[in-house]
């Protein structure tokens, strides 16, 4: 995966990390233990705490990573491919031998707030503790109470398979020194209670920026550009910017559209597929509408910025672009027009509009190419129990046809985005479909 051109800067980064690891290892006790607030030593949780904890676990979508496909909830074992190796999520059911049955409240707080195991060792940041550190002690305790109440499942944790040097956990101390700042969420006094509630959920349990902020070469989110979007490593979905008005951005979305999208999976502006469908399917749809609205209010308030990551697709000549557009118009007329209509307005919410749809026009064309190739259904939710679907065209259409039609929808009806080449499309044929 590492290209030769990238190696020098990578090695340089590694040296920095090793140095920092040595420098910070002796100081880790400062963050390792002792900074947790006392919890009163309760042993049994009230039913209301458990219920609240279940709700908060939904907000954090814990189940998504801690459950294998078709497996026992929260029993872990899911393989998470990263650029640095494969991680296997742990069992967080209350089984005493293989799960968190022997953990105390303090241990769970230390994991969520400081990203450290009961032994004091740091977690890999695939566990988004740089978000969860914002969650309040009361909420973390409630989640723990809930996890202690679920069915214990005996499933031994599988060892991570990280490449050298990333298998050296001590190096994580360097990473943490660079990128991790523990600290609970602090409400902004100038903002409404609703905005603050939304900010708390988005920045904390929601861990939205884990995908919607680009990552640097060490897998850390780019804090200087929060919510600026980025390609999700390995999964090859583009998590759009939530700030850039030019690319995705939510500037043109009404609050009601955002609420509909986050709560039901479909809206007048667009529908959720891929990883976002999962977030809605097992997380957001279970939140109360006021909470989802609060998240929408906060997200909508993010300041519009310039463009996000620069696109990776090949540049093509004007003439090639023109040919693609013309061929694409014919492909569109043959395959797409029944649902998305000749004017590109679609029949929302069942069939999203393509005209003015930021998921189509954003710089990276990976999402529209994926949609055309592999189709999809938005998630089944309480508010959208019987979704309409998009056919997968990977078998019916050639790379040239797909490049043409994606070019067409990126440039018709006032959309203004770069053309897409068949070479780009070909690259995406083999991306893993698991997510």
């Amino acid at each position, binding site marked *: 995966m590492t290209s030769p051109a990238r190696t020098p800067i990578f090695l340089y980064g590694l040296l920095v990390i090793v140095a920092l690891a040595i420098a910070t290892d002796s100081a880790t006790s400062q963050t390792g233990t002792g900074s947790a607030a006392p919890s009163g030593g309760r042993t049994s949780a009230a039913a209301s705490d458990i219920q609240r904890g279940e709700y908060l676990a939904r907000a954090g979508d814990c189940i998504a990573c801690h459950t*294998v*496909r*078709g497996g026992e909830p929260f029993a872990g074992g899911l393989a998470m491919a990263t650029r640095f190796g494969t991680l296997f999520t742990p069992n967080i059911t209350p089984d005493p031998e293989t799960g968190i049955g022997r953990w105390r409240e303090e241990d769970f707080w230390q994991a969520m707030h400081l990203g450290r195991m009961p032994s004091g060792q740091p977690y890999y940041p695939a566990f988004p503790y740089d978000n969860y550190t914002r969650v309040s002690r009361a909420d973390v305790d409630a989640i723990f109470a809930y996890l202690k109440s679920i069915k214990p499942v005996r499933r031994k944790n599988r060892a991570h398979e990280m490449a050298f040097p990333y298998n050296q956990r001590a190096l994580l101390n360097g990473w943490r020194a660079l990128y991790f700042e523990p600290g609970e969420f602090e409400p902004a006094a100038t903002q409404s209670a609703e905005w603050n509630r939304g900010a708390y959920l988005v920045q904390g349990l929601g861990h939205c920026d884990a995908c919607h902020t680009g990552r640097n070469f060490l897998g850390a989110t780019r804090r200087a550009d929060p919510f600026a979007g980025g390609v999700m490593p390995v999964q090859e979905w583009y998590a759009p910017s939530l700030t850039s008005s030019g690319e995705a951005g939510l500037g043109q979305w009404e609050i009601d559209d955002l609420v509909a999208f986050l709560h039901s*999976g479909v809206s007048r502006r667009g529908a959720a597929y891929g990883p976002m*469908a*999962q977030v*809605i*399917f097992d997380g957001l749809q279970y939140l109360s509408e006021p909470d989802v609205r609060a998240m929408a209010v906060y997200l909508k308030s993010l300041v519009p910025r310039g463009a996000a990551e620069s696109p990776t697709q090949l540049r093509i000549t004007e003439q090639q672009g023109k040919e693609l557009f013309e061929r694409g118009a014919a492909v569109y007329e043959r395959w797409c*027009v*029944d*649902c998305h*209509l*000749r*004017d590109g307005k679609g*029949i929302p919410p*069942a*069939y999203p509009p393509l005209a003015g749809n930021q998921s189509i026009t954003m710089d990276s064309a990976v999402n529209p190419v994926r949609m055309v190739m*592999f*189709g*999809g*259904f*938005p*998630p*089944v939710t309480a508010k959208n*129990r*019987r*979704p*309409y*679907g*998009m*056919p*997968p*065209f*990977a*078998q*019916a259409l050639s790379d040239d046809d797909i490049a043409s039609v994606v070019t067409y929808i990126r440039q018709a009806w006032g959309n203004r985005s770069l053309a897409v080449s068949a070479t780009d499309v070909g690259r995406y044929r083999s991306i*893993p*479909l*698991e997510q």
Partner: protein
Amino acid sequence: MRSRAALRIALTFVACIALTTHGRAQPTPTLADTMQQRMAACGICHGEQGEGRGAAEYYPRISGKPADYLFTQLQHFRDGRRKYPQMVYLMRYMDDRYLREIADYYAALQPAHLAPAKPSPDARERQRGEVLVTRGDTSKSIPPCAGCHGRTLTGMAPGIPGLVGLPVDYIAAQLGAWKTGLRVATPPDCMLTIAQRMSGSDIAAVAKWLGSQPPPADVAKLAPPVKLPLRCGNHPA
């Protein structure tokens, strides 16, 4: 006043006609609130009515298969027990309720069958296929397909699918997947046991023979449940 109102209505009418007949304009469509419209996405591979794409393609006919069978398969795809990546991907964020509705929808459709594949040119292969399907091979403890999938191979209530009207490639791929453990059924997985007793050439013979059979007239008919030669999940013992 009245004449002005009438004029306004007339003008609106003319404007509407002008808009709808104008060159590339498309009449405002209404979205059909039907399963047919919801499942339109499936037609590109399985055919508009779930009839499949013909003998030369991989994609199976799904209409008219037992609802219980379809429901179980959809669950298997969603939960990752069946591995075809495109189906796994499409089913991922669906609940049992919707999967049941999808299964019931396709189970009730009975579109005409497409033409079967040409019979294998190899006479020995044809004979081997027919023997395995109708009589089995006691020397290898392989029961006949017809013992569970119905004498007319149109399936058995409540959950065993018919085997006629499927593409050769599809049948061969399923048996091969069972043999290698890639496809699994509800335990006890009798098809795994059977496929592992079959050789590669047995699988080819069965697939080619089944894929070239013309569908019988009463193809919609499921045989009544009987005790099977092996214990199978999803079938009453």
